[in-house]
């Protein structure tokens, strides 16, 4: 069975490195990373991921705006997205907090919660 492709877009290299390591350990995902928010759309087009993990607050780009463009594009409007943000608490994430209709997880990242959400979003 082909591995699912996950693209992580976050300006913090420590976050992308940790997530890539942890998700690739599962051996069911191929993980790609992008630390420059302005290159998000180019990366999405070139990688064509099955799931997007997207930071909301990046210095050069806004995650919610990127998600809106993705949603309005016919070729990517079904792409599942999980938001990562420092503005959502663990309790809010647990309660199913959403941003622009997509699930949002807080930082620091709870890996178990993230893996559960990934599986849920890919179904």
């Amino acid at each position, binding site marked *: 069975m082909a591995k699912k492709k996950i693209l992580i877009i976050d*300006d*913090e290299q*420590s*976050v992308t*490195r*940790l997530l890539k*390591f*942890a998700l690739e*350990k599962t051996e069911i995902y191929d993980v790609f990373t992008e630390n420059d928010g302005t290159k998000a759309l180019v990366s999405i087009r070139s990688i064509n991921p099955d799931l997007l993990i997207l930071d909301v607050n990046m*210095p050069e780009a806004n995650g919610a705006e990127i998600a809106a463009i993705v949603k309005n594009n016919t070729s990517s409007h079904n792409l599942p997205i999980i938001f990562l943000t*420092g503005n959502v608490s663990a309790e809010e994430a647990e309660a199913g907090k959403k941003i622009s209709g997509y699930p949002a997880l807080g*930082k*620091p*990242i*709870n*890996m*178990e919660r993230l893996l559960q959400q990934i599986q849920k979003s890919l179904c």
Partner: protein
Amino acid sequence: MPEISKKPSKLTYVGVAAAVALTAFALQDLRLRSNLKSTTRITQDLRQEVEVLRKENDTFKMGELSDKTSINKLSEQLNTLAQDKSLTVSSQTELKKKVIDAESTLQAQNAKIAQLEGKLKEAETKISRQKKASTNLEQQTKSAKANPGMTTEYVKLVENEWLVAVAKTDELNKDLRRTLSELSGQNQERSKLRSDTATMHYNLAVILTEQQNFPAAIVEYQKVLEIRPDDADSHYNLAVIYDDYLNDNEKALGHYRQYIKASPDTPEANRVREWIKQKEYDTTFKFKI
């Protein structure tokens, strides 16, 4: 009847001739005396006239001397004024050049400060993000260590990321302090430069006022006030220009009031208070009329 002879004797002729001659002499003598008298009077008149003319000549000579002295004095004054004017013009040119140089330096300084402020803002944002990331990684490390499901490799990786983040935060803090110190130095330099520029504008304004070039002087005083809004001397001088030379009571009053505000305890301030009262009275009176 015998005819009486009417023929005169010889003696009679001689007597008549003598009488005629005497009469002629007497007349001539009288004429000569009269002529002499007249000549004497004319001579006296002429002498008096000569005397008057001599006196007039003396007075004229003295006047001429006095005029020459006055002309020399005036010439000296004119030379001094020309020298003063030449000095003033050269000072003005020199000052204008200095002001242009100072303003150019100030502009460069402002650009440098704006750049540093931008750098500072950027550094602050970076530090804020880095601190947040560092805190997240610290919590993530603790959480990974406490979770038996996490592999040792993952725990080490998280911990390493956390340590890197802490080191990076320290480095950013050092950068921030360096930028702050540089900014503080530049601000001090700018402050001094602004003060020097204001003084140059003030000096230029004084020279222009002396030359009675009031519009240009006003512009220079305004430039001083842009840098030092409470500069008492500039307010005072502007008030005098508007009051004494341009007859603009409203502006004169405004600057007199600013002067009082900036320098309330000087002896001059009391005089200015009186002028303000007088001007306010004049203005009200004029308004009522």
